């Protein structure tokens, strides 16, 4: 059973078990899909995250207790729903050197060689638990424990767009250049956020992604692409 909490006068937080786990996120994913398809005319938008969904509504349009009742009814029925199609994406990454200035640090910290870090990082499936921090920034779950590395103490360096980083037991990709404290081990030539595109965000909550190590040549070729919507579909696998 989910917990229902009010977030001010325009939000309801639907909260599942408080942990970062696949099975909890699967509940989030189902409920979020159900709210956005069956209550689309009653809610404004939702923010799904690790273990909860923040549902925004317009109190001038709907009575909050009615919405609450509808959400609870939906929660009961949505566990039996088959989850919406989950996308699998392959993200090319050039690891190390100037694109991954912290690769050596992550290796040293975990008593691994840089090659082992790359192998471990690129042989996992990661789940996009949520997007936040900056537009299009994916919080990825599934980092091997052996790669966990604390953040930088001084998070002022400029991190370039496409940087793949590690912070604690999380890994993520910077969609736009911004300051940040994550340990940067590589860079993807893909654009995670294309403001002019019809669908400007590469990732959706719930996507499964895998990293694929590429070389400098391949990086060069891929970074010259425009990555419009059709080309982005190429990275879908499975």
């Amino acid at each position, binding site marked *: 059973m989910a917990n229902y*909490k*009010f*977030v*001010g*006068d*325009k*939000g309801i*937080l639907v*909260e599942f078990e*408080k*942990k*970062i786990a696949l099975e909890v996120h699967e509940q989030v994913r189902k409920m979020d899909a159900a709210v956005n398809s069956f209550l689309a005319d009653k809610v*404004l*938008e*939702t*923010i*799904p*995250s*690790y*273990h*909860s*969904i*923040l549902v*925004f509504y317009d*109190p*001038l349009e709907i009575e*909050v207790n009615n919405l609450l009742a509808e959400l609870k009814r939906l929660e009961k029925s949505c566990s039996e729903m088959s989850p919406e199609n989950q996308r699998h994406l392959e993200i090319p990454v050039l690891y190390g050197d100037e694109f991954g200035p912290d690769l050596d640090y992550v290796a040293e910290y975990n008593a691994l060689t840089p090659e082992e870090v790359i192998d471990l990082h690129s042989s996992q499936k990661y789940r996009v638990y*949520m*997007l*936040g*921090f*900056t*537009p*299009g*920034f994916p*919080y990825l779950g599934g980092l091997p424990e052996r790669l966990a590395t604390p953040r930088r103490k001084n998070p002022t360096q400029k991190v370039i767009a496409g940087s793949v980083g590690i912070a604690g037991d999380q890994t993520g990709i910077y969609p*736009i250049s911004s300051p940040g404290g994550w340990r940067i081990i590589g860079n993807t030539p893909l654009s995670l956020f294309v*403001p002019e595109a019809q669908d*400007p*965000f590469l*990732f*959706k*909550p719930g996507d499964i992604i895998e990293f694929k190590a590429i070389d400098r040549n391949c990086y060069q070729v891929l970074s010259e692409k425009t990555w419009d919507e059709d080309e982005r579909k190429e990275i879908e696998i499975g």
Partner: protein
Amino acid sequence: MGEFKIIEAGPCTTVQDRGRYGYQRYGMPVAGAMDDFSYKMANLLVGNEAGAAVLEYTFQGPAIKFFDGAIIAVTGARAAVYLNGCLLPDWQSFFVPGGSVLSFARVEQGARSYIAFQGGLQVEEKLKSRSTYLRGEFGGYQGRKLKKDDCLEFYGQPQKTDYTCRYLPEKFIPDYPSKVEGRIILGPQVECFSEEGAKNFLKGRYKVTEQADRMGYRLEGPEIKHKDGADIISDGVAAGSIQVPGHQQPIILLADCQTTGGYPKIATVISVDLAKIAQLKPGDIISFREIELAEAHRLLEEREKLFQQIRTRKMKFGPSKFLNLKINEDNYRVMIEEIRD
């Protein structure tokens, strides 16, 4: 299409509308006008539909040269408004002939004002909104604050004959005191705080620090202790949410706030009070009072009724009268207009 040029920009003048909704799940902040009451009123006064893009300025207004005639209204923080050097009323629409210069004195009360143009500002829509999200350098006019010599356009080209005066009756014009009460709904993570911490929060007076911008205000006051650490599993946040990081001082999240956060949120400011919080300056004081959710919704409905009333009301000025006054040996002619509903 009418055009104007920025002669002086002021410290933070941006294009804003009601905000960018529908993309928070992708990490895109809502942005939009900080003080939604003044924003909506400014649009209503010039006859715009809700949602038109306006200018928002902070502390010091811009100086604007109009190349074409415009119908505009200025609302929000109180500052003297000048047209070609002559004082103009705020919270009222007026016609500005092409060639005029609109300028402002420094804000005396409040922090943010709005300049609405009949027809609305014409900048490219990005993700269904014209709002500027400054940190993301996204939307609005080139994703940034306005600078000297920027030229902007507004839809339509109104003539003086199109002009119907609309004003907000004095009793509805908000005051912007430097001490305010923010009404709140407790939660969603009030249980993360010690009893004493929660009590301090509800009884304390908090000062707005220098770190106060469109993303949020850091406050300073009685400590709000956590029960057991200041980290939660990140979840969605809303404008008005009051998060408390490890330093035990609250931060009110505002229009440009991130969409998710990892600090517990003790309470959320109700929607109608965000407008007065948007008008606070560093050094101002805020205290909090818990209210029922139903009360918050009633207040929102009440405010909506006022918007409806202004939307449907057209107020014309009656014939002008002139008075000749002599003050300190100088002669003045004062124009008086009778206001009729």
